[in-house]
């Protein structure tokens, strides 16, 4: 799901930047809409259970030495996606294709380069084929799992649920505030690029293009400074003294314990089968 890849070669750097920035915004919008779908299966599970379960599964996928075990987890992720009403088309567009293009390009030469038993008449080795499959399958499975988490959990809940991974509160708060201002910054950058583009007539020479890019980053940087000191004042005004506190509103139901057991059992099985 490399959002940074895949822009047309001919486009100007401004257009490509605009494309990259708006892709980020539209994935966030998709995730938000999908996480709010009340009819989905995983949307109703306690976020802490999902975080613990998905992260354990990802680790199990990384640890498993069996292609079959990893493929089984991928199948499970796919089933859960369908049950949670995550559209397969958006999953393919945002998750599977970008990973296939990126990791596929990296895995392909391994088919030929890895030393081992050659197939008769082919420059391909059995070991190479296996190595490439491991790389691609693991990358696809892990990213499917993590996007499943993001697409079925509201960001605010996901954030607080990260506390189950023993992340300090201050990191959770910083992550949340970063995500919040990310949208402001993405929008600011987008507006800046769009207004530059509308004022740019003809082709800029390379040095000017670089100056333009640097100035854009520079403006964004000084805006960041102003923003952070204003936010600091706004926090102080409401009593912030350096310590951060969170409102914890999760309730675990019986069904959530069942889910947790299922996640952990599958992860353990995958790791054991593929040990």
């Amino acid at each position, binding site marked *: 799901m490399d959002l940074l890849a895949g822009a047309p070669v001919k486009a100007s750097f401004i257009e490509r930047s605009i494309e990259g920035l708006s892709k980020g915004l539209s994935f966030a919008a998709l995730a938000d809409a999908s996480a709010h779908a009340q009819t989905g299966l995983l949307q109703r599970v306690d976020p802490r259970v999902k975080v613990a379960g998905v992260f354990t599964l990802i680790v199990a996928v990384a640890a498993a030495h069996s292609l079959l075990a990893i493929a089984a987890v991928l199948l499970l992720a796919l089933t859960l996606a369908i049950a949670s009403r995550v559209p397969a088309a958006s999953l393919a567009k945002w998750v599977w294709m970008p990973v296939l293009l990126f990791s596929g390009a990296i895995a392909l030469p391994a088919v030929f380069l890895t030393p081992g038993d050659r197939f008769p008449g082919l420059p391909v080795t059995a070991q190479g084929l296996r*190595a490439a499959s491991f790389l691609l399958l693991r990358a696809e499975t892990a990213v499917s799992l993590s996007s499943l988490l993001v697409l079925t959990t509201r960001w605010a809940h996901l954030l607080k649920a990260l506390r189950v991974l023993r992340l300090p509160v201050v990191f959770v708060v910083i992550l949340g505030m970063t*995500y919040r201002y990310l949208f402001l910054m993405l929008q600011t950058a987008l507006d800046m690029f769009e207004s530059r583009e509308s004022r740019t007539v003809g082709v800029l020479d*390379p040095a000017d293009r670089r*100056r333009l890019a640097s100035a854009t980053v520079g403006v*964004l940087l000084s805006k960041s400074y102003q923003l*952070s000191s204003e936010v600091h004042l706004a926090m102080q005004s409401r009593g912030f003294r350096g310590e951060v506190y969170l409102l914890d509103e999760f309730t675990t139901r019986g069904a959530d314990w069942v889910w947790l057991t299922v996640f952990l059992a599958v992860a353990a099985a995958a790791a054991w089968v593929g040990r």
Partner: protein
Amino acid sequence: MHIPDGYLSPSTCAALYAGSTPFWYASLNKMKRRLNTQAVPLLSVFAAFSFVIMMFNLPLPGGTTGHAVGMGITAIVLGPWGSILAISVALAIQAIFFGDGGITAIGANCFNMAIAGSLVAYAVYRVIAGGSAIESSRRVAAAAVAGYCAINVSALLAAIEFGIQPSLFHDASGAPLYAPYPLHIALPAMMIGHLTIAGFAEAIVSGGVVAYLQRAEPALLKPTAPGAALPGESAGWAGTKPLWIALAVLLVLTPLGILAAGAAWGEWMPADFSSPAARQQMTAASSNQAPPAQAPAGLQKLSAIWTAPMPRYAPSVLKSPQFGYLLSAMAGAGLIVLAFLAGAWIFSRVRR
């Protein structure tokens, strides 16, 4: 350079999480002590800034475009500790929310880009910029070199992490379980692209933004230029001692870590630069820059220089050509850094 899930073994990931944790902890403490209540909003907004910078497409010489990580400019404006945290948070959000970089690899990506990148960038910037005035062109050159070195050190670390996977983690038949390319392929494949394209993207952002800030907001450059007010004084070394120590520790630990892992080197044959498949892979991995048709003779010689004087009782690991490649690549990167330092120094003298 965002390493996805599945490229590194769980033990490599765990080691890099463990390696990153003390840096995160120390940085957070330093930031909280220095900035008190301002640390949280400052780090959050700058993490968002780094995230957005990573999405920019930058015009590069030769008509191509590329992405920068932004560790150069972040380290120059926030200092190394703030930069470590801001970029780490940006990388974590990219991994968790946007699937860019793996969740198991957050430790690795943060170690390479946020931690090593920020420390290298800051140290190089401080040393080259020295006590020059805020508006001096030497600072622009220093920032550009800092960005260039930082991204290349990050790429080198990633290449090493990739390159040690196949010999450490493979199944009974010898099929690699994680990143499939050994050091002699991983190193050139990563470094060619970064020494050319990505390095320049980082250099342009760092240098260009410093040039912009000199005109528009010089105050933002002041905190990391304590000696700037006193022309002629060389503040470069004194203030950066802890950073150089941290950097030295990093460099020392890298080969030691490889040794400790008890790598079974030598299973792979040396790089076949003339094989079309290998060349195709390197081309893909280095953003369509064709690699040389021959293995660089210099690399081979350097590796021989390294392996030759090793005493006979040294473990065979140390004598293997792969290890030689690794160390000579590190030495090569060091030489490039030195050459840049010298070049920037001469450049600044000539301009004055």
